[in-house]
């Protein structure tokens, strides 16, 4: 029997490490970043863990912007990022929470809680007038997002607060302290938020947007996405 020994510590038999289960075993699904455009998981996919987030769908925003405008931004940003590939976000949305982990048995209770919290919330008109670059928590990706205009933020922040209260019921992390409410449109790998050229381009685009009075949509429903399930909550 061979041991993987290290000084001072008791060895762990190689046979044990070779057994199925746990980190070295077969049950951990191999995570291949290439399979999804170079993205990496923030937490491992595991049975019973349901990645959950709450957001308002913002498909209307895309319609209003027009496909060609987003496309032109995309190519410009790609050029500014020295040719790095910039991808459009699949379904643009206005995030109201972080991505948290729910257990399977908690999903129903959580959505119930969320429903009761959002029960008497009103629709809020959303206006965005600025394109910004936001890195994700572990700085592996940068999102290019439309930031909400200052006058439309408070209504959405109220929604965020309601979602937060549901989160805290389950001991889950609440949204960021100083929320930068935004609708992500494009993303690229790596942290590009500090690039000078990117900044300049973003400022230009933001100027254009602000001058045209920004783009907007009416947030009339909240979606809670948990794993592959989606729960809709309509706002009055």
């Amino acid at each position: 029997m061979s041991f993987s020994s290290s000084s001072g510590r008791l060895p762990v038999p190689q046979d044990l490490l070779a057994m199925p289960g746990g980190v070295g075993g077969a049950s951990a699904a191999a995570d291949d970043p290439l399979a999804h455009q170079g993205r990496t998981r923030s937490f491992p996919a595991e049975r019973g863990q349901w990645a959950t987030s709450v957001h308002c769908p913002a498909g209307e925003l895309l319609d209003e912007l027009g496909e060609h405008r987003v496309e032109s931004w995309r190519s410009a940003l790609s050029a500014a990022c020295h040719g790095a590939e910039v991808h459009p976000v699949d379904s643009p949305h206005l995030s109201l929470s972080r991505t948290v982990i729910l257990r399977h048995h908690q999903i129903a209770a959580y959505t119930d809680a969320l429903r009761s919290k959002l029960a008497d919330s009103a629709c809020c008109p959303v206006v965005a007038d600025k394109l910004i670059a936001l890195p994700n928590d572990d700085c592996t990706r940068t999102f290019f997002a439309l930031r909400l205009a200052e006058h439309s933020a408070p209504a959405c922040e109220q929604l965020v607060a309601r979602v937060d209260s549901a989160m805290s019921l389950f001991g889950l992390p609440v949204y960021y302290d100083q929320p930068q409410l935004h609708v992500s449109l494009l993303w690229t790998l790596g942290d590009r938020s500090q690039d000078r050229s990117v900044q300049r381009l973003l400022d230009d685009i933001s100027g254009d947007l602000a001058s045209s009075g920004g783009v907007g949509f009416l947030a009339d429903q909240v979606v809670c996405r948990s794993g592959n399930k989606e729960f809709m909550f309509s706002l009055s």
Partner: protein
Amino acid sequence: MDPGSIFFEEEDLPYEEEILRNPYSVKSWLRYVEHKADGRRPVAVCQIYERAVKQLPGSYKLWYRYLRYRRLLARARANSPDVSDADLQAELSVANAAHERALVHMHKMPRIWLDYCRFLTRQGRITESRRAFDRALRSLPLTQHDRLWPPYLRLVRLHAPHGCLETALRVLRRYVRFKPEGREDFVDFLLEHQRLDEAVANLVAIINDDSFQSSRGKSKHALWQELCNLLSRNPLEVTSVNAEAIIRQGISRYTDQVGRLWTALAEWHLRAGNISRARDVFEEALATVTTVRDFSQVFDASAEFEEGLVRQLMEAAEEGSAAAGDSEESLESDLAMLRFEHLIERRPLLLNSVLLRQNPHCVPEWHKRVQLLADRPAEQIGTYMEAVKTVDPHKASAGRACTLWTEFAKFYEKHDQLSDARTVFEKAAAADHRTVDDLAYVWCQWAEMELRHGPPEKALALLAKAVAPPSHKVDFYDRSEPVQARLHKSLKLWSFYVDLEESYGTLATARAAYDRMLDLQIATPQIVINYAVMLEESAYFEEAFRVYERGIALFKWPNVEELWKTYLIHFSDRYGGAKLERARDLFEQCLEHCPAELSRPFFLLYAKLEEEHGLAKRAMNVYERALERLPANQRAPMFNIYINRVAELLGVTHTRAVYEKAIESLPDAEAREFCLRFAELETRLGEVDRARAVYAYCAQICDPRLHEQFWHAWQEFEIANGSEETLREMLRVKRSVTAAFSTQLNYTAAAAAAAGSADSDDQAEDSAGPSSSDPMRALEQQQQQSAQPKGILFVRGKDQEQPAGVMRTAPAAAESAASGVANSNGAGGKANPEELQIGGDDDDSEDSDAGGEVMEEAGEDSDGGGENIEISELPVPSEVLGSLAKDSDDES
């Protein structure tokens, strides 16, 4: 032979002539021989024989007779003292020559050969006889060798010790080739003559010969043993075979002799002077034997061997020190000593190995092994690893295989290697287990470890992971599914998880967990109660009550009892009288399906609720219902409570009805008690007449011989409250009751004996319960009624024991009794003495008067007070019993 030399006498002539006529007739020759065989001239006989065999050389008959004659002749010569040795030798050689001549023609005749050989043997001509045997063997066909070998073997055996061993061996070898069954004898012979090598070779040949059948009924096994013994005892002498290989083969073949054979092998090496090889063999044996018996055999031999070695070296060292004091020798003896000690030290471990080899799935032995290796962590790890790899959880005996995993992980935990402990748990969670419970145990142990060492969130996350449902639906009891897939329904795991959620999670997460448990239908009533209590503590009362309702819907009676109890208590505590109707509904719902024997606490709770928040009347109603519902053995305490409550709520006077009901519905033993208390109550209230009526009523179930206490109490009462008449009346009743009880045929000597211990009897009656006493009672009453006329006679008979005055009035008593019977025909045999007192109906008044008078007269002193008594007593019983009767009517 020359014809001229033929000499014959006169009387031989006819024979000679016949021979001349028929020279080839065996018969005529034989006749001639017979004629001459008178013993006077053996030479002549021999001559005739010679002539005969010359004429007829192919005649077996002639040759045989001739040779026999010759041998007899030679023997006779040998026995006669006056024959010189030279003569004898000459005679013998002639005889031998005759045999030789005969064999020229008769070489196919085994008889001739045998006789010749034997003859030669007798003469002590060893070599010649041997050659004769050899020639015989050569000339006779193989089928006839059987007859030759025994004498031949006898010969060589006889002479083997005297310098002919080699010859004997050669002969025997030939014999063995002819007849392999004779090998055993050959082996014995060889052993006898110290030819061990050849003996072993032959033994091996015997054992290798599958068709060999031992002539001595020895089994192959026995032969093996013999061989092994031989080999081990004589390592140096045996060179032709590979002793080690043979013994090892024996070890693999004869599992029941493994210990012995190993010892033999070691001994073989030892005797060959190969000490280190012997030690190796012992080690090998200790490492391979599978039974404790073999182990101890080998171990003892091994220990003995080492000890002997030590002793030997010590002695040598002593001698050496006397001479020179060689340091090398002392080192050697130290080494031997160490070896010996090492061996003794290792014994428990070796024994443990044996047991594990015997049953590798014996979990406690693995644990024991780890303990034995206490100071050697690396080996402990190795042992754990081997254990978890070897033990098949489905075959694990005397323990659960999962404990090996958890102990393995705890081992790392003890050495502050948490990450490694986690690795072990990870593997354990993925490993096979016999039951879901085992896997749950592993997870719980893991979570407990995390709790001990870190933030509870980690343990919580771990358990949440464990209870995650699998991707497809799985039946918990489906054994074909792996335990991992069924784990999410493990009650143990969920209980632990909800416990942790309750302690460390939020209310919402704990609720989610509890709800899932209820959904999975794995909750126990206790879990439901815990859930509800948790909600109540967080002031979610309605939710808590909903949980109770859910739990109650899940379980059946009697499991749901505790749940209902907690629910009702908590509900009452919470709302008091605020939601009385809902509470009542709950109680009704509960009592609807509640089995009678479990319903008491619920009735009490219900009554309490009604008393505190509702109406007293409703409370009383609940008590009434309880008394109807409860089984008989629980009724008496309930009556007690009821009476107390009634006295408190409605006043003492209202308890009368309850007492009456109690007396009516309870079995006799308990009814007596209530009667006494009822009477006491009445006495206290000053209602002397009522009290007396109660006593009188109770008297009919109190046998004076068994229930002295009652009669004593009545007497006390009468002394305190009554008059002389009432006292007398009491005595009268007592007598009549005595009479009534004595009429019962069932009143046996045993009952009389029991009178001394009336109390214990009462208790027995109490515990006997309604089912056993009621039918008996009914039977007794039936008999009492049917035997009524007879009973009266008995009264008289009994009275005869009384003072003489009674005897005088006895006929009168009989008369009146008879009239009583006549009168009461219609009333179904109501002529009980008790009836005289209490049955105060108008119809019966005459009867009772008459009876009263009779009894009065029987009481010796006649006075006119009888009528007064009747007048004063009449109204009261009618009231008492009237109400009773009414109640019973209502009930029915």
